[in-house]
């Protein structure tokens, strides 16, 4: 690797909505600059797509350094820094953007701007990034570049006269994109002589080398063997390995201001090298860290309990291991009379929660009971104390409380105008407060509501998608706490209160939620040999009740003509269902029941 002058470095990221072609464009840039061979590209491209489709999120490329000889004959180093594509990770996005001077705004020429894109563009503008609009998928028959240009200009206020028309898939416009990066994205400031400050924008845990930290050197120079200090975690490490990403890791002796690279220094957990932390030299530390570092703040909580009590220690170990790689994950032991020993876990958002659950089940082979997600309530007590409750079953008695406050978020939705009605209806039914509505362009409207987070973490996103037939997109951010007349709704199965099913709801909705919950439970809990009453109550007042009739028979009449396969499948399905049953008193309750509150219509 030759030493590159700061003036010839360009650091940029790509902002795009899911499916608007970010990965394809990134792959194409790597290919065109010869960073990755065509053969390697094929494999990588396919893997990315499959995973993306499965989870609906962008799999991170993290970063890639590309060498590019411009039309002016000069050699440039282009660093592409990837950003996660989901609202749960907006802090991580902001740190990635802080490491760049420019960004490609990639918009599907047939779809237009989506809420998520918008949120990230605003973040990029906050960081004074040069934004280059790219209209992708220009080759598709439905492409309407002029409409989408107008939309970008109107919504974001970004001049689109120079917007690049591209098709990453077909290789159209790639050269123009590379030239624009060289000419429009400003070079980093040359601060090579100043004390070292490097911004961590990503990290992951490698079992052999410890945490691998991805960073951008903002000031000064960093060399292999240097002793560094992390200014937020106050830890010090000797750098064992230093390198660049192309996109595979290639070791290098030194990196200076403007460059992007990785390091390994026997760091034991990503918690010790958090995204946003500043790396400086232990011997000659910078005066102040880079701005913008914040602790991870979980917004959504749920209880995780092993189906089999014997797996509690395994669950603890699995959570410990996941946390090595996920500083935002929080957990603490929780004991529930109904569920036994488990953990109360905190997540950045719903997607983060789902990813963690799935990894625990897939990678650690644990059978888990997950309780419905909850948020943190602020409870003001009569004695003047203020406490935070992340578990509805811990809510103090009404006699002790003065008020309950709940977190609110601002939700921005972008939708074709024909779905404005249904989305307003949805937002109203979730206790939303209307804030704003703007007609952006023909057929596109933004809708802004303030909503209790508790209403958003249930199935709001799914409902928004289904009521807009998939066309609407949304983004949300926390705006503070508000007092509301909230009550604790208990669910009793066969007379026993089941604390994982307890929820905190608005008083006016308690009857509706209670009724819907017991009806849902009636569907989900299998019949037993006895009649099972189901009740929803506020305190001692029953607001809704149902019962599950007793099982009278469960027998297969015949296995006709020796063909046993179908009957066997039935029994196997039944057996599989039993694996997910949790005994609550004498009633076996399936895992889905604990998420029932999410499935209410």
């Amino acid at each position: 690797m030759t030493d590159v002058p700061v003036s010839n470095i360009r650091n940029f990221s790509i902002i795009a909505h899911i499916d608007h072609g970010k990965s394809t464009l990134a792959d194409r840039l790597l290919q065109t600059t010869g960073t990755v061979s065509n053969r390697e590209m094929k494999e990588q491209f396919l893997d990315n797509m499959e995973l993306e489709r499965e989870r609906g999120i962008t799999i991170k490329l993290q970063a890639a350094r590309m060498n590019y000889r411009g039309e002016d004959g000069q050699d440039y180093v282009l660093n592409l820094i990837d950003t996660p594509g989901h609202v749960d990770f907006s802090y991580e996005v902001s740190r990635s953007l802080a490491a760049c001077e420019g960004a490609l705004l990639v918009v599907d020429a047939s779809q237009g701007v989506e809420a998520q894109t918008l949120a990230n563009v605003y973040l990029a503008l906050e960081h004074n990034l040069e934004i280059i609009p790219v209209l992708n998928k220009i080759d598709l028959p439905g492409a309407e570049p002029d409409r989408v240009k107008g939309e970008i200009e109107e919504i974001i206020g970004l001049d689109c006269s120079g917007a690049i028309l591209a098709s990453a898939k077909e290789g159209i416009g790639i050269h123009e994109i590379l030239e624009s990066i060289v000419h429009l994205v400003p070079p980093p400031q040359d601060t090579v002589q100043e004390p070292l400050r490097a911004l961590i924008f990503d990290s992951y845990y490698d079992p052999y080398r410890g945490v691998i930290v991805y960073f951008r050197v903002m000031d000064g120079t960093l060399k292999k063997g240097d002793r560094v200090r992390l200014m937020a975690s106050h830890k010090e490490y000797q750098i064992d390995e230093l390198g660049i990403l192309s996109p595979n890791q290639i070791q290098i002796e030194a990196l200076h201001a403007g460059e992007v690279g990785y390091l390994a220094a026997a760091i034991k957990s990503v918690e010790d090298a958090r995204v946003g932390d500043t790396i400086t030299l232990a011997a000659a530390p910078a005066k102040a860290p880079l701005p913008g570092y914040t602790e991870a703040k979980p917004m959504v909580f749920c209880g995780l309990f092993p189906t089999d009590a014997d797996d509690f220690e395994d669950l603890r170990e699995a959570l410990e291991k996941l946390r090595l790689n996920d500083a935002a994950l929080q957990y603490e032991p929780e004991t529930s009379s109904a569920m036994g020993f488990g953990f109360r876990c905190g997540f950045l958002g719903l997607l983060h929660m789902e990813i963690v659950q799935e990894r625990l089940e897939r990678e650690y082979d644990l059978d888990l009971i997950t309780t419905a997600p909850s948020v943190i309530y602020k409870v003001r007590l009569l004695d003047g104390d203020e406490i935070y409750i992340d578990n509805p079953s811990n809510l103090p008695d009404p006699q002790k409380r003065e008020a309950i406050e709940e977190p609110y978020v601002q939700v921005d939705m972008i939708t074709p105008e024909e779905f404005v009605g249904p989305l307003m209806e949805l937002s109203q039914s979730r206790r939303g407060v209307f804030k704003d509505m703007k007609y952006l362009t023909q057929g596109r409207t933004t809708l802004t509501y303030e909503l209790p987070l508790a209403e958003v973490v249930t199935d709001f996103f799914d409902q928004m998608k289904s009521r807009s037939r998939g066309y609407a997109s949304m983004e949300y951010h926390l705006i503070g706490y508000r007092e509301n007349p909230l009550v604790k709704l208990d669910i009793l199965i066969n007379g026993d209160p089941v604390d994982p099913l307890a929820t905190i709801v608005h008083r006016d909705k308690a009857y509706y939620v209670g009724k819907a919950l017991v009806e849902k439970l009636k569907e989900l809990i299998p019949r037993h040999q006895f009649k099972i009453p189901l009740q929803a109550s506020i305190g001692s007042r029953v607001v809704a009740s149902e019962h599950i009739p007793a099982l009278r028979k469960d027998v297969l009449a015949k296995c006709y003509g020796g063909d046993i396969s179908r009957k066997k499948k039935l029994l196997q399905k039944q057996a599989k269902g039993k694996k997910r049953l949790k005994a609550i008193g004498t009633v076996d309750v399936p895992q889905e029941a604990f998420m029932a509150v999410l499935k209410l219509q």
Partner: protein
Amino acid sequence: MVDQTVNPKFDEADGCDRTASLYPSISQWMIPSAVAAQEKVAIAATAPPEQYPVAAYLHIPFCRRRCFYCDFPISVVGDRARGETSGSIAQYVAALRREVWMTPSLGRSLQTVFFGGGTPSLLSVEQVDALLTTLDQQFGIAADAEISMEMDPGTFDQSHIRGYVAAGVNRISLGVQAFQADSLQACGRTHTPADIPVAVDLIRQAGLENFSLDLISGLPHLTLDRWQDSLERAIALAPAHLSIYDLTVEPGTTFAQRYEPGEAPLPADDATAEMYRLAQQVLTHSGFQHYEISNYARPGFQCGHNRVYWENRPYYGFGMGAASYVNHQRFSRPRTRREYFTWLETLEAAGGSLDCPPTLPKERLLDTLMLGLRLADGLNLDILTAEFGEAAIAPLLPRLQTHIERGWVEAAPPRIRLTDPEGFLFSNVVLSDLFETLS
């Protein structure tokens, strides 16, 4: 016992030139074929002789109409068609015989043959005879073999039944289903209550006392009183055997479109559970043994063929949709005639060997449990341990403890069985627990 004078040639049924060249040559079907002999060696190397099948099932898919509860692989031929006149029935019988010829014999003669359907009583006497002759020549049929045939009231006359008996049929299973006109009608059955005693008389006149009646509980409009009446009428016909099936509303059937299980006009679940108990009470008092979840027999008249299934022993299966279990290979044939004919060609091209993985011991154990616990005899844990190993069998008895306590399972080690009627009624609860333990 099988009339050897009928010439087992295929030409009578050959309506399809395309496949004519695929028929085995005379030399192949007159003596055990070379292919079959080779197969015999190959199979003998992997399965002990006691694992060779002694039971054969032949599927005769033709029905006048499709009953509203039926999801079996059948072909509807209308009210007039019979084997004597229908080209498609003749073509199918020819195909069936080709399949028999292609199936390697393992050298044990058949102890049971079962003509199931569909409506086998739509076959001509010659067709039944030809099929039995083919089986006899390919595998041999033991002199005392049980040869069962399913028949529907109103689909056969005296000459048919006498002919079937002459061809070797010695056990009849009569599809009565119900004794009430409205219930029969609600099922889309073609017969009326009046056809039932007529059919039984025809069977008796042909000299057969070994016959069974099929009844379905839980049919539309059925009440406990009417069910009691049905049971009494059935007993009055003095059958040797009774099959009592609780209606299952299978997806895709007319019933599934019309009815919701447990809701009117279908009887409620507690009513059908009571019907099950009532049948058990009434029939056992009348001298029937409740030997399987859905089957009752006078002493000595259990269905040997069905016991092969329940004891998880091997059997041949022939015809569309038919299942076979040979050399641990469990195989289900295509469920339409067209697909079955095509498959038959590939079978012939492959020299009669099935492309099908063997059932692994773990799966075999599940099969053995699911089938064996249907029998009043239950299962012997020592025998299971010998076959499947201590590690797999040891956890079963502890898992059954709660069921033993609530009286659904009776354990007199090494024997375990479901109790009658309560254990039988909840057999899936018990079985799915055992399945879960083993998964």
